[in-house]
């Protein structure tokens, strides 16, 4: 790349900052920028010289994103930048630092504390917090002191060291704080030539005979062997496209507000014709969201009832709202089955329609729900997995170390549930909670939203999917709700399978 031999580089957010290549002619931003500052940074990668203008082409992926791109450009022109204040240093990273330090040799705890607090994010770290992390790394930090004999770190003559020096290699292998999505190698059957890697979640969608594009060629999925995806060459058309989930950022409050302002216009001469038409159609069949109320739409589609919540609170807060509201729906017997959240809206589907939404959006009830569900939900489990890997509780799978046949691994969900039940105050649960509240939960934006709209919650019952709701049906990362609705479906599906097989 630095030599300039490549004609184009396709990347996730990894090349946003800190890259200094002078001869990038053009940046093509696919999808919405989510954040004005980030957009400015990205555009700045092109013609990275002080005396040349930077050029970029914005390619919104749906009509919501067309509006967001417009809002972002307006914001850049108006010189308004967004930005979140930096939070305190994550303590799971500190735990990993203890392990890494011990790999290099015995250390003195007080000396290390003195060093750690010289780093900005950890300047306010108390000695008690530091000691709790060290205790976790050394003993597991469990209320049940089970590992006295098998401590990971031991204190000898005032210095901490690895009990088993052989562990160092494995600890070093597991260093890092970016939690990869699990990937699988792809190779040609019989040739063994590796073609690249795909994400496990994409591999799970493939059945033998499916074709997909990798490394510039179309291949046919043959099967999975020894954790490797085996494929054969095929000149087929219409291959599936492998999906890689980069980091997902939530649209900033500044941008979301600007989008809602754009919606209030009488006409949209600055937007492309299809997007302007889309917005006016929405105004005709339902209405457009505005900053002073919360628009809800309810409609049947494909045999399920749907509810759309246009909160414009950013992906994470919309997701939290989805979790809280489905929980309320579950207790009202509305049998929600799942939901998907974007930066603009949450789409919930289930077996029964919502007719009285006000109780679902009562701030106090939501806050109570936050306390109770916080522990049991998928977002917390996802955060826990990252925290457990970073802090060294579990090792990530490494190629070559993965067991074949009977799996020796089990999900971090089980560890999470066990800890919650038997050791609810454990350090790792505290860290998980802290990280989740800051990152994936983002409850403050829900509070801000509900404070802004007050009692103005506006439910529209409609006969079919509305223009604004349509893009939500193409969103990946759907989150299932485990409950009555799913149990009802599972029973029906089991019955159907047995009948189809003639086994009843």
């Amino acid at each position, binding site marked *: 790349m630095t030599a300039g031999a490549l004609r184009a580089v396709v990347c996730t957010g990894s090349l946003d900052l800190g890259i200094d290549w002078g001869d990038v002619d053009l940046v093509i931003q696919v999808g919405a920028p989510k954040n004005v500052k980030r957009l400015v940074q990205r555009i700045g990668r092109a013609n990275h010289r002080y005396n040349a203008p930077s050029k970029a082409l914005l390619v919104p992926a749906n009509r919501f994103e067309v509006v967001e791109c417009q809002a972002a450009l307006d914001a850049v022109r108006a010189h308004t930048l967004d930005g979140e204040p930096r939070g305190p240093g994550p303590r799971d990273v500190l735990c990993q630092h203890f392990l890494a330090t011990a790999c290099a040799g015995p250390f003195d705890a007080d000396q290390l504390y003195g060093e750690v607090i010289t780093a900005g994010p950890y300047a306010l770290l108390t000695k008690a917090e530091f000691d709790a992390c060290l205790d976790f790394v050394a003993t597991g930090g469990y209320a049940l002191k089970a590992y006295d004999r098998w401590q990971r770190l031991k204190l000898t003559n005032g210095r901490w060291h690895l009990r088993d020096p052989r562990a160092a290699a494995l600890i070093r292998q597991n260093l890092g704080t970016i939690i990869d999505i699990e990937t699988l190698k792809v190779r040609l059957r019989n040739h063994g030539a590796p073609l690249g890697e795909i994400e496990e979640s994409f591999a799970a969608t493939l059945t033998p005979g499916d074709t997909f594009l990798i490394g510039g060629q179309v291949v046919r999925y043959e099967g999975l062997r020894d954790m490797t995806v085996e494929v054969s060459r095929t000149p087929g058309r219409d291959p599936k496209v492998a999906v890689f989930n980069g980091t997902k950022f939530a649209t900033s409050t500044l941008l979301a507000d600007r989008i809602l302002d754009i919606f209030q216009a009488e006409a949209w001469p600055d937007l492309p014709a299809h997007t302007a038409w889309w917005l006016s159609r929405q105004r005709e069949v339902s209405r457009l969201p505005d900053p002073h109320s919360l628009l809800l739409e309810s409609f049947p589609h494909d045999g399920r009832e749907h509810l759309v919540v246009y909160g414009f609170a950013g992906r994470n807060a919309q997701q939290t709202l989805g979790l809280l509201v489905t929980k309320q729906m579950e207790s009202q017997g509305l049998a929600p089955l799942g939901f998907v959240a974007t930066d603009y809206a949450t789409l919930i589907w289930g077996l029964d329609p919502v007719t009285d939404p006000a109780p679902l959006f009562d701030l106090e009830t939501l806050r109570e729900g936050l306390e109770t569900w916080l522990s049991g939900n998928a977002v917390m489990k996802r955060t826990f997995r990252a925290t457990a890997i970073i802090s060294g509780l579990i090792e990530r799978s490494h190629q070559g170390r993965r067991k074949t046949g009977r799996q020796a691994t089990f999900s971090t969900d089980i560890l999470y549930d066990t800890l919650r039940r038997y050791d609810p105050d454990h350090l790792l649960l505290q860290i998980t909670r802290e990280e989740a509240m800051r990152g994936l939960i983002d409850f403050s934006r829900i509070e801000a939203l509900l404070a802004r709209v007050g009692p103005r919650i506006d439910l529209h019952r409609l006969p079919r999917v509305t223009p604004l709701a349509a893009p939500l049906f193409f969103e990946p990362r759907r989150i299932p709700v485990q409950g009555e609705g799913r149990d009802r479906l*599972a*029973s029906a599906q089991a019955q159907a399978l047995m009948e189809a097989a003639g*086994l009843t």
Partner: protein
Amino acid sequence: MHHALFHHGETLHLLPSGGLHWPARKLLCVSDLHLGKSERLARRGGALLPPYETQATLEKLDRDLEATKAEIVICLGDSFDDLAAVDGLENSARLWLARLMAGRDWTWITGNHDPGPIEIGGTHRAEVTLMPFTFRHIAMPDQKAEVSGHYHPKARLAGQSKPCFLADAARLILPAYGVYTGGLRAHDAALTALMAKDALAILTGPRVLAIPMPR
């Protein structure tokens, strides 16, 4: 709610927990408890996992024994994660286990993780036959009425993967009962080769549901 299975003229209850209850014999059979798994991993210098899985597994077993009033218990092997894990057992767990075993006819079948006799009461056997069934750890070819464990089978239904029983006319394979246990998908070649074409997978969970075994 359990799932009732009629097998060789006998009624067997497949429990939501993954245990097998044979009411006529007042028998409870569980497989692959893997007690002491977290201790074994720690001993080997690896991660220090939450050391509560023995407690959680025993709680489960306690509940099933209470509910079924079983007088005969067969643990189908891999009851301990290795032989040293028996010594590593907390005193409280040891006492709890002793309390569960008291007054019951208790058999430990040997598994590949716990291949030898252990310093805990009960009977130790490679396999046990209680007509018409033979109980052993790993399924053997050409059987008529066999109950085994070992594979930790799991299957997916309506988007959720759960530990499951596998059953055909000749054999029944139990899911792993222990809390820290992974699973092997029912459509794995090791299992599809073993089970007949018309085999069922019976998924554990609040509702025990039977489906044709995924292939």
